[in-house]
């Protein structure tokens, strides 16, 4: 047994987190920063933070993840990190020559109280920021919120630093994709293009974290939203923010700063959430939904129709981040599955309420917890086993111990490929999710079939 010490009984825990279902803010900020073209993320703290974030993102994407650090030592921790950051900015622009440096803070620099805008001001006045180059920052204290907030904060910083209104409302829509994979970002752009909608998507990690093998290493890959595009977001007709936690704050900031109206929607995972996304874009841009998308929707629905027997009332346990879980839960309910254990490590009041609403009609008791951990998740499963689990790679330990099939979704996925190339958003992504669910359930059925009950046609 891999998790041999996890008991079925669930004693109350007030202070101890075991097997977290979240990590800290800075890694989210680093991921978002990589979605700016020519950007070098910078961790203002001690070296360990950036080493850990780079390692985790690298393992998830199997791609180079470049970033820099202020390399705090004890001295900097006592006297503040201003000297370190000034030196870092100068070195980075001289040696690594990025278009922009995206600084995020850490628990260390936040506890010290370093004032990043003030340090930027000093760097500017000392001529350490070359002409035409940029810096931006987000405060991402690790002891507040989770990686989800870090992503949201850095995305919002892109608005705070760059969005400007030119006084017109251009025929363009801002799309904020939320913390999804590069493949998902590409799919969101494709759907918009399919509908004939001109869009700016930010952050955009497509072609940054799913780059090709060309025999040539580019420190700054082709992808990413440009600073010029970020500036223009202030003049777009509207914003569609996907994922209320990861994209909501940036969308609201754009509204407040540049009067760009926004719609904050779920991540377009599953049928209804994708429908809402497509419909919102249709109305905001004043376009009609093309046949090509109707076809994709119909094909997705066709799979659900044909394979309904395999989904019906299967119990599912989900662990991950709020935006993903809300969309996934709705989708599972829509295909007659029963999501019964739902855990996120990220604390968020609205989450539990939303999940309860979404699962109101599920004919089973539903456990939901925000601010929970994977230890609790496992204990719930021990008490009420499920047919399928959905979560990040760490779920595989539960999967092996409890002999329950499992689909990898979320962050981090350290042991499989695919997420960077094949989306789970939109109708096409929905089809892929359905295929994954069916593969997991049907492989299990085949494995458990006897010589008598084995089915050829399924």
């Amino acid at each position: 047994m891999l998790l041999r010490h996890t008991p079925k009984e669930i004693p109350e825990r007030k202070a101890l987190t075991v097997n977290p279902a979240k990590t800290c803010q800075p890694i989210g900020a680093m991921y978002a920063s990589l979605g700016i073209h020519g950007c070098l993320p910078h961790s203002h703290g001690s070296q360990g933070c950036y080493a850990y974030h780079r390692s985790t993102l690298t393992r998830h994407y199997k791609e180079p993840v470049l970033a820099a650090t202020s390399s705090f030592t004890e001295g900097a921790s006592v006297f503040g990190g201003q000297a370190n950051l000034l030196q870092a900015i100068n070195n980075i622009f001289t040696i690594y020559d990025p278009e922009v440096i995206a600084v995020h803070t850490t628990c260390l620099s936040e506890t010290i109280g370093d004032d990043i805008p003030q340090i930027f001001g000093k760097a500017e006045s000392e001529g350490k920021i070359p002409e035409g180059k940029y810096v931006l920052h987000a405060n991402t204290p690790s002891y507040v919120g989770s990686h989800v907030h870090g992503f949201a904060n850095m995305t919002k910083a892109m608005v705070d630093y760059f969005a400007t209104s030119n006084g017109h409302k251009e025929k363009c829509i801002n799309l904020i994709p939320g913390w999804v994979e590069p493949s998902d970002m590409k799919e969101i752009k494709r759907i918009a293009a399919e509908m004939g909608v001109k869009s700016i998507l930010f952050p955009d990690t497509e072609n940054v974290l799913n780059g090709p093998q060309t025999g040539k290493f580019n420190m700054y890959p082709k992808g990413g939203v440009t600073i010029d595009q970020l500036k223009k977001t202030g003049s777009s007709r509207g914003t569609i923010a996907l994922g209320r936690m990861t994209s909501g704050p940036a969308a609201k900031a754009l509204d407040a700063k540049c009067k760009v109206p926004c719609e904050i929607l779920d991540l377009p995972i599953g049928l209804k959430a994708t429908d809402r996304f497509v419909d919102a874009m249709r109305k905001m841009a004043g376009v009609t939904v093309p046949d090509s998308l109707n076809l994709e929707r119909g094909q997705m629905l066709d799979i659900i129709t044909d394979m309904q027997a395999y989904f019906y009332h299967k119990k599912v346990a989900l662990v991950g981040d709020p935006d993903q879980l809300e969309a996934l839960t709705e989708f599972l309910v829509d295909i007659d599955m029963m999501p019964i254990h739902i855990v996120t490590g990220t604390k968020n009041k609205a989450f539990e309420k939303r999940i309860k609403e979404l699962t109101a009609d599920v004919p089973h008791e539903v456990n939901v917890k925000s601010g929970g951990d994977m230890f609790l998740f496992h204990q719930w499963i021990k008490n009420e086993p499920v047919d399928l689990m959905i979560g990040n790679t760490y779920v595989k330990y539960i999967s092996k111990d409890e002999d329950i099939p499992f689909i990898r979704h979320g962050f981090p996925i350290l042991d499989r490929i695919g997420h960077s190339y094949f989306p789970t958003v939109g109708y096409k992504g929905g089809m892929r999710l359905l295929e994954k669910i069916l593969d997991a359930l049907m492989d299990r059925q085949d494995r458990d079939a006897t010589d008598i009950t084995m089915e050829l046609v399924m």
Partner: protein
Amino acid sequence: MTVMPEKKTENEEDAKAWREIKPEDVKKTILAKYPAKVARKRSKHFVINKKKDEQNYEEIQANVRTIPGIISQRGCCYAGCKGVVMGPTRDIINLTHGPIGCGFYSWLTRRNQTDPSTTPDGHNFMTYCFSTDMQDEEVIFGGEKKLAQAIQEAYDIFKPKMISVFSTCPIGLIGDDIHAVTRKMQEKLGITIFGFSCEGYKGVSQSAGHHVANNGLFKHVIGQDDTVGEGKYRVNLLGEYNIGGDEFIIDEIFEKCGIKIVSTFSGNSSVDHFRNSHTADLNLIMCHRSINYVADMMEEKYGIPWMKVNFLGAKATSASLRKIAQYYGDQELIDRVEAVIAEEMVAVEKAQADVRPRLEGKLAMMFVGGSRAHHYQELFSEMGMQTIAAGYEFAHRDDYEGRHVLPTIRVDADSRNIEELTVEKDPERYNPRIPEEELKAEERHGIKLKEYEGMMADMEEGFTYAIDDISQYETEKMIEIYKPAIFCAGIKEKYMVQKHGMPMKQLHSYDSGGPYAVYKGAINFYYEIDRMINSKVWGHIRAPWEESPELTAMYADE
């Protein structure tokens, strides 16, 4: 075993080509890009391997702070303490006190294997991550209460033998006294509980964390259990972390030779083994950097001598086994070791002969850790490959230049904040395993004790480089200039290197491979490198239309 396609080796041409490059020019070109101050500093870390007199190599600067903004491979003190040294011990609850990230990132991400079936209680907490998940209110009002509560809850649920607590960056700043809390909880719960002040900003790299961990183990764990176990030749293996199962096969070879491992620090390790490790006769050090402190302290307190060994590379393994046998001086052991070597070398030599034609003369670079950049050169040279540049991520000068430079190493402010324990002879347990004169002379039966000559002595003079704490930019330039056949480092460098269309081998985690230790491991490694360098994939990078972009054919409808 897969048969690799016949590939023409450009051995001689390769060898000639890289020897024509002038290292002095390379160094100058690379440093030119840096701002002047940075260039001055990096220059001292970027050394062309040369002897400056009989005994000494060119001095290299190491174990000093990384310049902010330079993309380094390094991690932090916490990573060295919790991740490296303490992490691989299965039956300790390692509780991270701080925000959630540090605990999360160090959760199962090193490939330390462990076999819980070999300790009676079967405890294994390595698959778990324990954290106090510190929130802003605790940063403001202090986190001691939450820490005490978390220890209580961990005890109530898991009933472990030992709980250790690791401080992360904010703990040092807000002033939580983890040592007072753990002392109190130890008294209350009656199990071993203690803390490590391994805040990430301490020292300049993981190295500080190794030292902190060594101190904690020495103060709180080693020497708690005086039971003397079985075995005629009883040794501890220090600085072996059982990545990919290395410890398992070292143990296998030892068993064949009749040598008993009392405790491994720390791979496939148990706190039970740590507790009576002071009953061993001899300490063997694999990774000198991470663990020599414990060996020195055990010698002073208990009279256990130590010697440097290396089980990476067949030749090095044989030399190390012979050293151990010679140390004991027992003919029976000497004969048995020789028999084992003779038996094992048959397959090794066969494998070497098989891979050499495909690898001979090719260049390797390795930048990793605190000992592996040295040890793995053995394996590459057994394949006929040449290590052109190597360096450590967090080592000190003695790991490069040899321990004889220890008295000349200046301790700067960043290292001074790591406690140096004062150790005295244990009044009851001190028992010199060899005559005091030999301990003092650091030599027994002609075998040098407490000796490590460092990496530079094993590298070719004049043409090769020792580069400490190599930066991303320097990595790029070295690859561009020398186009080595393979580059070795860690996960952060892996894909950047491979995007160049060349293989990159991780020597921290071994990618998904291993074991690479002793004889069987050496064979694994030869074939791993053969696979990586001679894989078909490198031939697929250019699409056919890139080879001949001009259209020469007629269109179908013409």
